[in-house]
């Protein structure tokens, strides 16, 4: 029997858990990681990565359809859905193997099973691991990190059937490109699937409960995206809810309520992307001092739960539900356990977010409304893609970069982008925020020409009435 006593047990092998395990191993801890399904978690297997693979296919398809705009001929452009999905699965498989290799390289002991907190032995935590109802191991460690992640919120009456009602896992391996698609929820997940299927030809309808799509983003970005998608032929219904779904043999009838009026519409498939719930069940929280609030484990700023030595990170520990937030928390907790000096809690206002619809969205920091809610006096700058030479040359003249500064201190409070490749641009502002630059340093920075990043410069200049190219 292998060693069962560790310095740290990580429960969950997603981007929070496996990164925490590797960092802890780097800090000379003897680490066990328990993962029930896939190393790499949802992100790598059923989330961030495979959707990016799908969206890459749809993006190239879109470009091929518009080859004429670039003086190219591409006749008979089509797609093979099975091949698109196969490619996406292969990408996930490759990276999944990569995580296993990284854990091995860092001498992390991986257990393939379900872990459960199982009381204490002295100053150590006991963790019970089982697989298929059979005990696999009883582990002990002074510290435990819960990184069990989250799963899609299932709406009552819209339980996944794998045929007509899809959740993200079904939508990642579609058997068809539905003729008429209903997407419930316009957060990052909903809008990415809507974008993918719409590009491949589905007549897509997005229903959002609040009054704008991608509601976590700056209102101006929401409006820009809505206009752009609508222009592209996507139907977007905001301030609306789906009351009921009646399943037929090959189609569903959805009752969509808008401002008190209910309309029944027929669709070939439904994708439900109405938020997520934390995986807090069957991990031994019962009878502990660990608190759960609306399916998420309650922690303090150091990710400590109510039980000493037990930490929670990533999706299960609350919003924002982003892989990079989980990873960063994993590193922080590993270093905290190791007694690393000079640590500080994560600044959540500096976590970027990216959505890979077409056009892309990327943002970091406060929205204009959030800044105003905090009573801050702000300066706002904007720069449109139409003013940027590289954007015109790329044939991507649609987009906007918006920045928000504190009027008093010159602190960069937030940045919001929509348009081609903005997901690769946002980190420039992320670094600027982390280094606490003011507008002065951003203005002094030389941006390479011709690049899309020049818009980041111009947007800053615009906030201070100094924009050059617009």
């Amino acid at each position, binding site marked *: 029997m292998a060693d069962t006593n560790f310095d740290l047990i990580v429960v969950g092998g997603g981007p929070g858990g496996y990164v925490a395990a590797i960092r802890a191993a780097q800090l000379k801890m003897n680490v066990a990681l328990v993962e029930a399904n896939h190393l790499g978690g949802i992100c790598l297997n059923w989330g961030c990565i495979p959707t990016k693979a799908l969206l890459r296919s749809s993006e190239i398809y879109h470009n091929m359809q518009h080859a004429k705009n670039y003086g190219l001929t591409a006749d008979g452009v089509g797609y093979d859905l099975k091949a698109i999905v196969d490619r996406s699965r292969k990408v996930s498989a490759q990276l999944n193997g990569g995580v296993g290799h990284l854990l091995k390289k860092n001498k992390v002991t991986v257990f393939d099973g379900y872990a459960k907190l199982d009381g204490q032995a002295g100053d150590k935590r006991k963790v019970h691991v089982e697989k298929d109802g059979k005990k696999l191991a009883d582990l002990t460690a002074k510290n435990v990190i819960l990184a069990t992640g989250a799963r899609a919120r299932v709406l009552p009456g819209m339980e996944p059937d794998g045929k007509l009602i899809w959740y993200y896992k079904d939508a990642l391996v579609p058997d068809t490109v539905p003729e008429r698609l209903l997407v419930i929820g316009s957060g990052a997940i909903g809008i990415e699937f809507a974008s993918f299927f719409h590009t491949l030809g589905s007549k897509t309808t997005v229903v959002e409960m609040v009054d704008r799509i991608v509601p976590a983003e700056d209102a101006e970005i929401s409006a820009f995206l809505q206009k752009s998608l609508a222009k592209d032929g996507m139907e977007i219904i905001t301030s609306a809810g789906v009351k009921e779904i009646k399943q037929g043999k090959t189609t569903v009838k959805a009752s969509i309520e808008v401002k008190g009026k209910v309309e029944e519409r027929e669709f070939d498939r439904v994708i439900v992307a109405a938020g997520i719930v934390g995986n807090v069940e069957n991990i031994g929280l019962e009878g502990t001092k660990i608190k759960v609030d609306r399916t998420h484990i309650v922690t303090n700023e150091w990710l400590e739960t109510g039980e000493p030595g037990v930490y929670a990170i990533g999706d299960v520990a609350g919003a924002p539900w982003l892989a990079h937030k989980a990873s960063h928390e994993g590193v922080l907790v590993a270093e905290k356990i190791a007694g690393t000096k000079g640590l*500080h809690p994560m600044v959540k206002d500096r976590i970027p977010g990216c959505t890979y619809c077409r056009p892309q969205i990327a943002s970091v920091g406060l929205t204009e409304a959030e800044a105003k809610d905090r009573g801050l006096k702000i300066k706002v700058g904007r720069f449109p893609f139409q003013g940027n030479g590289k954007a015109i040359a790329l044939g991507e003249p649609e987009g906007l970069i918006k920045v928000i500064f504190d009027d008093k201190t*010159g602190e960069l409070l937030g940045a919001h982008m929509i348009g081609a490749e903005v997901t690769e641009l946002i980190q420039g502002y992320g670094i600027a925020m982390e280094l606490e630059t003011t507008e*002065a*340093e951003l203005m002094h920075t030389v941006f390479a020409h011709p690049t899309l990043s020049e818009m980041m410069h111009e947007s800053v200049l615009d906030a201070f009435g100094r924009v050059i190219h617009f």
Partner: protein
Amino acid sequence: MPIEILMPALSPTMTEGNLATWSVSEGDTVSAGDVIAEIETDKATMEVEAVDEGTIGKIVVPAGTSAVAVNSVIALLLEEGEDASALEGYTSSNGGADSSASNDAKTEEASDVEPGKSAPAASNAPKPAASTTSAPVSPSGERVFASPLARRIATDKGLDLKAISGTGPHGRIVKRDVENAKPSAASASGGAVATPGFALPESGSVTEIPNSTMRKVIATRLQEAKQTIPHFYLSVDCRIDALLDMRKTLNAAAPEGDGAYKLSVNDLIIKAVAKGLVEVPAANAMWTDEAIHQFNTVDISVAVATPSGLITPIIRHADHKGLAAISNEIKELAGRAKDGKLMPEEYTGGGFTISNLGMFGVKDFAAIINPPQSCILAVGAGEQQPIVVDGQLAVGTVMTCTLSVDHRSVDGAVGAQFLAAFKRIIENPALLAL
């Protein structure tokens, strides 16, 4: 380039500490986290850990050195691949703060917190002082690592970044450090004096005037002077009718244009002090633990009030200068002092200070010694008053001068000898011509 190991601050208010022992020697390899030295303050002894890995290239501050300013370079660490040759031609980033600070877009507004541009009287630091207990708060200072946002917030709040310990990477001062700092917190850096039990006035009942760097240095240095220097005071009345007559005659004879001058009483006092110090050089001195340093030149600091505080421009070699030269020089220096445009060498390094409040009608007062000097002469107003001359009552103009003296370096008799010489010269002003 070698990595600088800086004197750490053990507490937010710590400005200096003693480097007790080194646990490593030059040539030793260290990794991050290794204990390399022990430092002590009046409160505690703490271990200093290496932040980076490398080889100790040079120990700059030897073990047993006391009063090492926070953030001064105590050792140089060679990075992997660097050898001792990297130390050659290495210049400390002292003064680097000036250039980096001036990159700030708000430099003009920030000039009063910019190290090196304005330092008050009290930061006088003749070269020998550098290795002594009276190690001054260096006005030029070492480079302070702070984020641009932290710098700007500090400027807005009137905070001295040097008084703040950074909690960012490698001790960098970041937003949260300056947000939590209060302008008044820094002025407590003298350490010994706390103000327990004071209830803060309700808001609205006070107007808060943020302390400039200059104000904080004045506070720290003069508090240190008054608390650590054993002061004693000698007063003498000088009859200055003859001096006033001579001044009148000389001013009446002043040419126009080139060579013009208009002497003040203070100009004559500067010259009289200079001549007195030539006669009694023991009063032109400085205390250190190891030795009394007697200055070989007569350089006189003259206190000038400016809008942002006290500063002491220096008349160097005052004993060799004529009255007109002294008068014109001090006018020019005082003018620039009021505009905050003195260069550091123009106000650091005098050996004796004159403070004159006579123009305000002050009869007499006792000044606080301007460290590391030993004497300061406080000059009161010349007033007509009844005096006894050869057994007869008469009217004379009398000026009271009070000498504050550091008893560690200058004894009572020496102070008295100097004051007697000064009085003789003032009352026989023709001696000023010699």
